[in-house]
């Protein structure tokens, strides 16, 4: 019996102690007519057979050169990261409710909170949320609670923010009658301008969300957008890529007084692409609204002998105590992946992260030059980017991407799916993992697809 240790003698002795004749007797409080029949599922198989099946299936999806970004990025993950994370003491521990028996996990979270707060230049971080998209929903809810000056249940959300984030956030907040209002973008720059925001001046909104870089990879004028929002009584929610923060102004320093809440997808920090999860969402904020922050938070304290230690804190905001009045229904953090990110950040340090960010930026610019050298291929927007770029092709991007895939190059995503006005547009990214040969291979494959 897989994973069940009992011998026949064990079972007999245990039943004797309980004072019943069979295991079935233990289910005698359950009405007979709802007991299950047989299931129509495969018979159990051995580890050896299963490993073979899984290896075959994993191999089927391998050997591709991936230039897709769109919120999830292929980065080199140092070997030490998942080796250490996979230790049973991290992998198979529970939520650190018994602090004395969980100091390892608790200290890692405290270090994680430090990393995220320092990277974003915000005051505090929680212990992580599920992912970037659902994190944006939590941030919108938090802003509505925290903006005491506003009575609004509306949040301004530029269309330059990931459509997947906007969709996710909408689906989560809509049941509480909260509205996410679209803001259009500048068609030349691919960014959100004050011109685009003008029509909302004087109207009551709880917050403006600003992504840096935005979904198109384009850099927004975060300083002027932040100041505009604050001047109009709104909080500012920053959506940022943590790798980019090694190079770009952190949200805490945007404009005159900084963003109020910063969230994002933590995946780039040492987490494999892994089909979209498990990733982790990070959320940081200014100290004065920390009580409105959802999710688990760890604090440093001392034990009864005065020795330093770590423990869950501010728990009275959470669902297990506050029930229907909790800041969120979230119970977990993405502990293990968050641990991976903490080790990743320790291995790279601020200088290492800068090198990664610069290499991504450089590769993307380089690939951009290579691809736009092909006839009819141009960049769709004229503003600087971080590590993603939108290309306009002379033909349907959907069919081009399909043909590239046949050459085992995943060339990016077809933007017209999300933005009807961006016909023939492809969003691609080239991280530090790509060599010059990889970039040239993409160029050559695209050239031959366009020539055919």
């Amino acid at each position, binding site marked *: 019996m897989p994973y069940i240790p009992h011998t026949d003698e064990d079972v007999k002795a245990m039943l004797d102690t309980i004072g019943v004749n069979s295991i079935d007797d233990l289910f005698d409080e359950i009405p007979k007519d709802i007991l299950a029949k047989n299931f129509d599922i495969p018979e159990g198989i051995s580890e050896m057979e299963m490993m073979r099946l899984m290896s075959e299936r994993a191999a089927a999806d391998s050997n591709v050169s991936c230039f897709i970004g769109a919120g999830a990025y292929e980065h080199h993950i140092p070997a030490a990261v998942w080796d250490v994370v996979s230790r049973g003491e991290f992998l198979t521990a529970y939520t650190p409710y018994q602090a004395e028996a969980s100091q390892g996990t608790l200290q890692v979270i405290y270090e994680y909170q430090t990393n995220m707060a320092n990277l974003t230049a915000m005051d505090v971080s929680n212990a992580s949320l599920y992912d970037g998209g659902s994190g944006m929903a939590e941030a919108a809810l938090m802003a509505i609670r925290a903006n*005491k000056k506003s009575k609004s249940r509306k949040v301004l959300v530029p269309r330059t923010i990931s459509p997947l984030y906007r969709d996710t956030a909408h689906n989560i907040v809509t049941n509480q009658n909260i509205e996410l209002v679209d803001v259009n973008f500048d068609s030349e720059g691919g960014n959100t301008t004050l011109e685009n925001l003008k029509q909302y001046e004087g109207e009551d909104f709880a917050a403006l969300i600003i992504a840096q870089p935005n979904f198109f990879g384009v850099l927004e004028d975060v300083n002027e957008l932040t100041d505009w929002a604050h001047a109009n009584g709104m909080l500012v929610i920053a959506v940022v890529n943590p790798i980019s923060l090694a190079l770009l102004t952190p949200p805490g320093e945007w404009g005159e007084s900084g963003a109020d809440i910063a969230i994002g997808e933590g995946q780039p920090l040492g987490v494999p692409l892994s089909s979209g999860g498990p990733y982790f969402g990070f959320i940081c904020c200014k100290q004065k609204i920390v*009580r409105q922050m959802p999710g688990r938070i760890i604090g440093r304290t001392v034990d009864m002998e005065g020795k330093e230690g770590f423990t869950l804190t501010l*728990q*009275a*905001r959470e669902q297990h*105590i*506050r029930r229907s*009045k909790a800041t969120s229904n979230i119970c977990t953090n993405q502990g293990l992946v968050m641990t991976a990110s903490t080790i990743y950040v320790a291995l790279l340090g601020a200088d290492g992260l800068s090198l990664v960010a610069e290499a991504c930026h450089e590769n993307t610019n380089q690939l951009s030059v290579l691809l736009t050298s092909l006839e009819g291929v141009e960049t769709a927007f004229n503003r600087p980017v971080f590590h993603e770029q939108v290309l306009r092709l002379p033909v349907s991007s959907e069919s081009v991407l399909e043909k590239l895939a046949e050459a085992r190059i995943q060339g990016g995503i077809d933007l017209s799916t999300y933005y009807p006005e961006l016909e023939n547009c492809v969003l691609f990214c080239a991280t530090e993992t790509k060599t010059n040969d990889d970039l040239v291979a993409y160029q050559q494959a695209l050239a031959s697809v366009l020539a055919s």
Partner: protein
Amino acid sequence: MSEIRPELKYLVSHEWLRVESDGTAFVGISDHAQEAMGDLVFVETPEVGSTVTAGEEAGVVESVKAASDIYAPVSGEVVAINEELEETPEAVNNDPYGDGWMFQIKLSDPAELESLELLSAEDYVAKVEEEDQ
């Protein structure tokens, strides 16, 4: 047995009320309530200038393992809050009827006092004893 001040009025939800001669009223939580909550770590008071309604939530007290709403015993405008509690919530534990007061309400209708079901100290003692059973 916790201290119950004879001159105060109480709510079944353990708030106390002291009406001053100028028509303002101090609100806090009883000694019994602070004992039951344990060490308080946070007190959320209503904002000065906001209006509260008798029987409705006006704030929250939190200990490490519990959170409890504070209900407004009377209706009116919040004219002052105890700002000290932001830094020293333990004042509620140490001196619930003095330094641990939470906010002051300017009664919108003093006649309301007659119609509300406020407990006398004696009734409140009875209520606490009943709860302890």
